[in-house]
């Protein structure tokens, strides 16, 4: 390829060893030719001495360590707190592209909420045969306890973090809806804080949309869910329920509580009396109205869900049924982000909204279907297999990177419980430059914007761009060697 060779000769540090493959490159439209919105960053990097970048990186790492911006790795005795790796090169998204993402995600959260309300009440969509009944009822996260329970404003999912990937043709597609307790938003805010220090002029000249108002928007969303019974009192008491200091996202819980100015509570701080939830304060008991819970359904209430849970509050679900407390997100939202239901989301959007989906899904094979299953079992080495109820990159087989033993293990698991798995083609996630080993290197990235739904749907422009820091890796999860970088959405 003589053209590519000559273009590469133009490359100067830090891009000397920058690699291209079939994936969409966020920065370059052709080798050596940056996309218009990346031009200024490209120029800056060519002029910046690598030594200075390295120093900035060290300063950033140290500041993350000192601030304790860490996550906890399970099953690792020594040094359980780790700094979440942060990359200094921003990922830039032009305004027009963001507009489309925004409208696509707004459409999606509206449809998914209507779906949840429907499956927990009349089940029209099931009766009409759009979504198979057995798929819903066999879902691990379907909660019978939620049948006919009315939630305020009919909003089940008020906080959502959807994973998007960019395909080789440049279009964004939804990979996963995280409708239960999505995390990572604090890293979005922390990354932004660091980048403003590292590239102050560049940041200003680019005209980047701010994200700092996220906490305020979150608080407004939670307040909008205020239950009817407390309208006489002027301000609802909102708290954030954390599993505690050993949870991997504990830093984020403390951060959000602090930014919103609400109490961070653990299960042992709350108690239920006469179906009313109180927290234990130094001045006695205080009534609680809204709980932003970062505890999974299973652990919320030992009287109702898992009996061995010590993280929850006995009696909480009864108070919830009585309408004396609001939980955000509602109980049972996991049925809508089940990876098998995911395949039906385009149909769900068409059914409730009468619109075509703005953002596409990734092609998905349902393994409960015999012919799809046979196809998948024959092509395990090319596909990605996922357990439907898992998240965080656990319980996954990445065909092209797997060994024959792993494939055999998944083959058996699939045959034993086909409903529990789906398969997708191995996606070529887009790549973006990251500053590693003193130079710019291409790494696969995804994008998780955060969507809030209270009085209306709000997205802070941007989100968390997660990076697969290992060369060639496609897994961006923090628990599996992923990192993150700041995401700059440009003003119009």
């Amino acid at each position: 390829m003589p053209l590519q060779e000559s273009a590469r000769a133009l490359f100067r540090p830090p891009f000397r060893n920058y690699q291209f493959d079939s994936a969409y490159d966020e920065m370059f439209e052709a080798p050596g030719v940056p996309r218009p919105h990346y031009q200024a960053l490209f120029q800056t990097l060519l002029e910046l001495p690598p030594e200075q970048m390295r120093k900035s990186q060290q300063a950033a790492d140290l500041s993350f360590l000192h601030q304790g911006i860490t996550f906890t790795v399970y099953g690792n005795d020594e040094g359980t707190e780790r700094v979440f790796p942060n990359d200094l090169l921003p990922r830039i998204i032009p305004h027009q592209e963001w507009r489309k993402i925004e409208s696509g995600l707004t459409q999606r959260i509206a449809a998914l909420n209507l779906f949840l309300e429907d499956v927990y009440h009349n089940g029209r969509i099931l009766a009409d045969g759009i979504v198979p009944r057995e798929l819903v009822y066999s879902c691990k996260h379907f909660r019978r306890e939620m049948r006919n329970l009315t939630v305020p404003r009919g909003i089940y999912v008020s906080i959502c973090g959807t994973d998007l990937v960019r395909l080789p043709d440049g279009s964004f597609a939804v990979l996963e809806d995280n409708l239960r307790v999505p995390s990572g938003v604090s890293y979005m805010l922390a990354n932004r804080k660091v980048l403003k220090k590292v590239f102050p002029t560049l940041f200003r000249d680019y005209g980047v949309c701010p994200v700092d108002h996220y906490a305020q928007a979150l608080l407004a969303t939670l307040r909008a869910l205020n239950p009817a019974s407390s309208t006489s009192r002027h301000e609802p008491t909102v708290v954030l329920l954390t599993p505690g200091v050993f949870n991997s996202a504990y830093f984020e819980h403390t951060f959000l509580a602090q930014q919103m100015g609400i109490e961070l509570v653990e299960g042992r701080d709350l108690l239920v009396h006469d179906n009313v939830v109180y927290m234990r304060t130094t001045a006695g008991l205080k009534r609680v109205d809204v709980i932003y819970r970062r505890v999974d359904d299973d652990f919320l209430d030992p009287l109702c869900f898992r009996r061995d849970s010590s993280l929850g509050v006995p009696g909480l679900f009864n108070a919830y049924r009585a309408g004396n407390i609001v939980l955000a997100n509602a109980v049972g939202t996991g049925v809508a982000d089940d990876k098998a239901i995911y395949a039906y989301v385009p149909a769900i959007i068409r059914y409730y909204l009468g619109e075509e989906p703005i953002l596409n899904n990734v092609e998905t094979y349902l393994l409960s279907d015999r012919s799809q299953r046979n196809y998948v079992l024959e092509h395990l080495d090319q596909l990605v297999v996922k357990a439907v109820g898992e998240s965080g990159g656990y319980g996954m087989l990445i065909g092209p990177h797997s060994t024959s033993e792993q494939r055999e293990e998944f083959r058996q698991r699939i045959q034993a419980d086909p409903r529990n798995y789906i398969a997708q083609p191995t996606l070529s996630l887009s790549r973006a430059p990251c500053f590693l080993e003193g130079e710019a290197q291409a790494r696969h990235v995804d994008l998780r914007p955060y969507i809030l739904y209270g009085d209306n749907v709000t997205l802070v422009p941007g989100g968390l761009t997660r990076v697969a820091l290992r060369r060639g890796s496609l897994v961006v999860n923090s628990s599996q060697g992923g990192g993150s970088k700041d995401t700059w959405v440009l003003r119009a």
Partner: protein
Amino acid sequence: MSLRLQNPMLSRVAESLYWMSRYLERAEHTARLIDVDFELRLDQSPEASSGRWWRLLEALQAPAPEQSTIDAATLTHLLTLDKENSSSIISCIAAARENLRQVREQCSSSMWEHLNRLYLQVNSTTSNETWLLQSYVFFRSVREGAHLFHGVTDSTMSHGEGWQYIQLGRYVERTDAVARLIGAYFSRLPYSPEQAVESEEYLEWVGLLKNCAAFEAYCKSYTAELRPLRVAEFLLLNPECPHSVRFCVDKVHASLLAIADLTERRQDLPVRLAGRLRATLSFSQIDEVMASGATAYVDSVRQQCSQAHSAIHQIYFDYPVETALSH
């Protein structure tokens, strides 16, 4: 429209702030005691300094070593970097940090950052020959880290209920530590109250004052002539020296009053216990104290302090739900 103050705080949060502060004070106290000892040892024969080790261990309530001969390096390790010993400096700082980590949304970001930094620094210290030679750097950084933390706290955190629990923990801990220290000296060291102490003995009494960061302040009040009675008076009853028992109890009482006001519990037990102890210290005469024995007096102070601690626990941190619902 009334002025908007902070909401009452969670009991768990109040307790964590209280303990965080106690642990940090304990670490600072231990660091000062060992540092002062190192300094004194340079001027003394090995026999003279070994007696002080026993006092030190008693004052810190440290586990007594099995062998009767005390090896300085082993003991220093036990009290500073030994993670097995729950009252070593490193354990105290780790416990302080762990407590603050559980409530970090309640403190200012820079408070957390300073304590976390102190923890990372102490944790990266390894004990070896060179460390022992340079140990004063370590002790200084622990003391300065604690001072810095309290300075940052005072200027970045609202002086509301949470801040009061930090004060409370700090001064309850200090009351107990200073009282215990005075007890250890007056029970183990021969003295005659009214006579100026000399030579070898002199260094020991200087040590006691320095352990309370009070040598210079003492000299300003009484000159450098040291008499056990005056030392006792200064460390027990002086209202201005920040390490005197009376000063600490005044602070404890003030914080409890503030908390009682904020939580509308003015009649409750903690304030009354602290008030009684405060009155005792305010009206005590040193000659009477010495006549009935300094050790007995100190023990009574410690006992009342411990009662106040239990009352704080019962009223603010861990009250039975039934009583709270009946209010």
